[in-house]
């Protein structure tokens, strides 16, 4: 493919059906901003009902009317883990903002979009997704490794599991992505699908 044919490809306006798919993608993306992204649950014999944290783009919702967060922090102080405070999560301010930007760019593509704008959007969104996931993993790593040496209990630094389950002392930790993450994850294939639809309808 020559440079000029690539340019023609990128400049090609989106088909009507592609615009519809992008529009649905924006709605799904926006939903992801409000739905829970991740659940971390801790289960032990004396916590059979589990201590639960649900992570949203904008907040942490703890189970049992918010009490589970206090309980997790109280337990974690024994191993010297830093207390989890919602205010420390700066990403909870910029992630909703970023999702808003992507939604606006998506709407712009619906209105006046060409394939090139979807490519830009897809590249930026992929970077956002990978960065966010990486930041989340790094946070978990930090919580598990940055332990106060003067804490009552000394344990080997550990990496809380990102997806799946593992035993930490008397707790079984389970971590799973939820509907919000699925919504965010769907955005990218929908952009690709819109490009494909435009290409297919033109040939």
């Amino acid at each position, binding site marked *: 493919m020559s440079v000029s044919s690539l340019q023609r490809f990128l400049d090609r306006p989106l088909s009507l059906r592609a615009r519809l798919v992008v529009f649905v993608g924006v709605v799904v993306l926006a939903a992801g901003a409000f739905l829970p992204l991740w659940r971390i649950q801790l289960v032990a014999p004396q916590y059979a009902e589990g201590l639960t944290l649900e992570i949203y783009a904008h907040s942490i919702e703890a189970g049992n009317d918010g009490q589970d967060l206090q309980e997790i922090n109280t337990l974690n102080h024994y191993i010297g883990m830093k207390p989890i405070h919602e205010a420390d999560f700066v990403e909870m301010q910029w992630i909703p903002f970023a999702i808003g930007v992507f939604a606006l760019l998506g709407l712009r593509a619906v209105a006046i979009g060409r394939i090139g704008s979807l490519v830009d959007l897809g590249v930026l969104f992929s970077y956002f997704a990978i960065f966010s996931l990486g930041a989340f993993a790094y946070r978990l790593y930090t919580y598990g490794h940055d332990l106060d040496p003067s804490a*009552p209990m000394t344990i080997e630094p550990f990496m809380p599991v990102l997806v799946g389950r593992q035993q930490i002392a008397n707790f079984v930790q389970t971590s799973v992505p939820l509907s919000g993450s699925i919504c965010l994850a769907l955005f990218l294939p929908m952009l690709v699908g819109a490009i494909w639809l435009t290409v297919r309808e033109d040939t």
Partner: protein
Amino acid sequence: MTRQLPTLMIGGLIAGGLALAGCGAPGSDTAPASDASAASQTYVPPGGLDEYYLFYSGGHSGQVYVAGLPSMRHIATIPVFAPYPATGYGFDEETKAMLGDYTWGDVHHPGLSQTDGLYDGRWLFVNDNANNRVARIDLRDFKTKQIFGPIPNSSGTHGSSFVTENTEYVLVATRFSVPLPTGRYAPPSAYADEFSGMVSGLRVDPETGTLSVGWQVLTPPFNWDLGSTGKGPSSGWAFWTSYNSEMAYETLEATSTQADRDYAAIVNWRAAEQAVREGRTRTIGGVPVIDPAETSGVLYFVGVPKSPHGIDTDPSGRWIVASGKLQPVATVFDFEKILTAIENRDFEGDVRGVPVIRYEAVVEGEVPVGLGPLHTQFDGQGNAYTSLFIESAVAKWRLPPWSAEDRADLNRVVTDKITVHHNIGHLVVGGSDTKAPYGRYLVAMNKLSKGRHVPVGPSQPETSQLIDITGSTMTMLYEAFTEPEPHFAQILKADAIAPIEVYPRAENTDPNAVWTAAEAGVSRSGNQVTVKMLAIRSRLVPDIVEVTAGDEVTIHLTNAEQTTDMIHGLGIGGHNINVIVDPGETKTVRFRATEPGVFPFYCTNFCSALHQEMSGYLAVKPR
């Protein structure tokens, strides 16, 4: 029938009450047909939950005990009239003030609050027979919230704490008449003229449950015994039995048992309420009292054979059953006939201005239930169950309406009998005092447990026995040894309430509560030392409290936990102090640090892996 008493009954009394060794080989006559079948009906596996609460009175222990049914397992103790270090009751300022100078009470008859004649799961009221008090337990947190008393003009609140159908009033009556107002002297020999009885209703605030005096009705010095509230046709009425219509004041055993009948009080409490509202009262002991000789339409008497004890209204509200301890019958009154008799002034005289309703006009029948009948409960299926103290049994019998054949021989309506061990007092069927009893189980609360348990020395526990009443014959299921001493009990479906398990932090309005270590600390003003102390796993903050001998120390202890069962305590060595705080709770304790020295304090309620480390020092410098 009402006069067949003497030799048979005296013999029965001696056999049943005095020579209990003769009461049969334990278990031989009442062992269930199949132990395995009974076991499967009561077995609640580890981790399983009971279906019902049993709230039973702890008698002179002053407490209320909570067990589960059908397992009969003791689950919790609710301290009411006596200090209870296990929950720190009676050590902090609030509960100390509630107990006043008393360290005991005599809990007899728990009564659940009702709405529209059904348990509403809000409160449990209990009486203190000894010190004339009634307490309210909130079923949201199973804690005593109010101790009301000493109730004016009341002494020996035995006929309590029966609750009206919309919790308008809790009944109170004097078991022991005294000269009124309380505190006045008169020689006991002037008993009949100078002493007075009183039947009362304590008003219950519909929002807060707060108790206050509603109405009081002056009576002759009979010994008011047990009560019951009306519903249906008897809505707005209350009933009490009495003994000692002879108005004897000494050697009551003989002197008060001469008459063939004693009186039951029939009180129109709506009329009493109105008389108070209209000021047709006089003031005695600071509260309005209705003199029935001056205000008619409030109080009536009817004779009950003989030395009656229990009086119970059936779920329909029409049949009132009273039992004479010394007459082997349960007497059934028809409340509709009582209303007609009152309307037609069908009286056989009066006692000090109180009309006595003609017995024959209102009695439906005397059911020959057995020896020493005390209390009657109902299953809502038309059956009544009467405890037989002397006979050590429960009789099951059919309520009216009765056929002509039944009436000709009321032995026909007694359909079953089961032996209990031994000397049953009260019995309880779930919801018997509501218009829709649960039926299903009956708990017999027996006074003597002789031979039923491995020996524990001369201080013997009581037995309570669980009986299945779903079939045509009663089946003994289980037996538990209940804390001394259950009088009456209430059964409540477990799913009728949803108690909290922590005090939500947002509800804590104590200005001295602290939630973080940063807020905790010690401040001083003159010789007043105030400590705001935080309890959280596994620290008490501050854990060093320095004071000077002679200082008055106030500790506000907050449990900052919000997780179920994370209870902390503060026991201070050498100071007779133990405060227990539930999650989210703040309590205050005040004491004078008199002696110099260093006194350890520590968390008394085992909380966490580092519970032992949860300690500190109260360091008292010499002045």
